[in-house]
């Protein structure tokens, strides 16, 4: 005879409850908890008539009961936590954990807000936040930039290092935007011109001019330099302002410069403009001779020093 292996409802074979000694297998089934309520009455009736089997069952249950005697365990908490804390570099209190939780939530919100802000900015000014690796036209860049020179520099530095604008890109003609680290040579400068013009090729507003230099630059000297170079670079100049008289541009230049950013760069490192000011050109500087050589870059022209422009003639 075998004890029941399954649920108690299957119970031992009722033939086992017949005459004779209750077998050990049946006692095992009882101790295994596999005798159902229905069978138990008949079984215990049988056991009551079998003192030997009943005695065995009782003795075994006493032995099992002894196993369940409670054991007083030492408290392992402190020593375990101390050991684990040393190995994993400490524990967090509930307060620390809550702070971290809040921090994670705040970081998540910030990321969502940043993405939302970028999306909104992109919708308001398409192309402003283009992060693709491909050069893009920079037309309209200066219009979209903030008057805050530090923000301007930050935005500019995140852009492609050098882009050549094409006239077909938009209604803006941009000579060249250089976003390269300034040579760590005192006295060098970068100048960016932007000429907005309409579809007919006429200037729609005065040209804008951005100067990046390691020192404040005289607007008068810029005009002088620019005039000199553009007169020598007639072909390139004409290509930039189709149909526009050269004199008109040159005449308007000092006035334009007066309104533009004069960016003073104190340090050159990793193409970041570490110190940027938005110092207006003072009137007295107009009368001073240029203190620094000005480098004006035009399409088709390499950045050159003095004298090289005449070589191009």
């Amino acid at each position, binding site marked *: 005879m075998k004890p029941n292996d399954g649920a108690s409802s299957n119970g031992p074979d009722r033939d086992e409850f017949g005459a004779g000694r209750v077998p050990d297998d049946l006692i095992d089934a009882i101790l295994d908890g596999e005798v159902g309520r229905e069978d138990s009455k008949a079984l215990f009736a049988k056991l009551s008539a079998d003192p030997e089997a009943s005695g065995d069952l009782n003795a075994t249950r006493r032995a099992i009961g002894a196993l369940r*005697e409670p054991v007083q365990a030492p408290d392992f*908490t402190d020593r375990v936590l101390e050991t684990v804390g040393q190995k994993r570099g400490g524990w967090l209190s509930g307060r620390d954990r809550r702070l971290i939780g809040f921090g994670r939530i705040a970081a998540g919100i910030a990321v969502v807000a940043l993405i939302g802000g970028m999306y909104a900015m992109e919708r308001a000014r398409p192309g402003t936040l283009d992060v693709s690796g491909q050069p893009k036209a920079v037309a309209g860049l200066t219009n979209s930039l903030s008057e805050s020179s530090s923000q301007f520099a930050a935005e500019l530095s995140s852009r492609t290092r050098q882009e050549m604008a094409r006239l077909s890109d938009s209604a803006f003609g941009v000579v060249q935007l250089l976003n390269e680290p300034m040579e760590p040579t005192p006295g060098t400068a970068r100048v960016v011109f932007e000429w907005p013009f309409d579809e007919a090729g006429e200037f729609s507003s005065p040209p804008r001019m951005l100067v990046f230099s390691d020192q404040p630059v005289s607007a008068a000297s810029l005009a002088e330099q620019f005039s000199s170079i553009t007169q020598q670079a007639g072909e390139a100049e004409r290509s930039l302002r189709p149909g526009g008289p050269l004199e008109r541009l040159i005449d308007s230049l000092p006035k334009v410069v007066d309104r533009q950013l004069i960016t003073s760069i104190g340090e050159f490192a990793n193409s970041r403009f570490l110190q940027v000011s938005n110092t207006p050109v003072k009137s007295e500087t107009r009368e001073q001779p240029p203190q620094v050589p000005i480098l004006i870059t035009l399409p088709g022209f390499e950045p050159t020093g003095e004298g090289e422009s005449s070589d191009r003639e």
Partner: protein
Amino acid sequence: MSMKKEDEVRLIELAVAGDKAAASDLIRAHQNSLFAYMLRMSGNPDIAEDIVQDAFVRVLLNLHRFDPRFRFSTWLFTIAKRLYVNAMQKHKPLYDSEIVGSRKGDWDEPNEPALALERDTQARDAIGRALQQLSPEQREIILLFHQQEWPIALIAEYTDMPEGTVKSHLHRGRRRMRKYFEEHESEEFLARFSDEVVIQ
């Protein structure tokens, strides 16, 4: 101390995140059962204590690997068992209170609490001695089934044995224990547990 599965999973998650209070709760929830099991398995409180402490340390250091689909206690006991097997290769089971049970003093009659403590100690020793008569498999399975109240199916999974084999060890082990108590322990000792074994 028992807790709901979802509460335990929550405690584990918090402990993984470094929450000390959650780790404390986990230890307190399982330390009594694990220590009782290891004490009966090893027969030596010092070894049991070392194993339990080491098991908790290992579990907490690897808590991030715990798969919540399984029972935490099974995982904890599995790690403790490995440590026990290693420990047993270095130590032999030892029941160190033979002295206590046989010692006769010349001093005054002990008072009642002292006698109760003595009887408890003797009872614990008798259980330990009975368990040591069993094979390791029988001892382990009897403890898991009757002390820890694990179901046969879980024991089979834990020990990697078929359920029939588990039952076979269980039945044989029980008979050997019964026989040992009948031959070696007094009726008075067995009567201590009679309240729990009344046939209904």
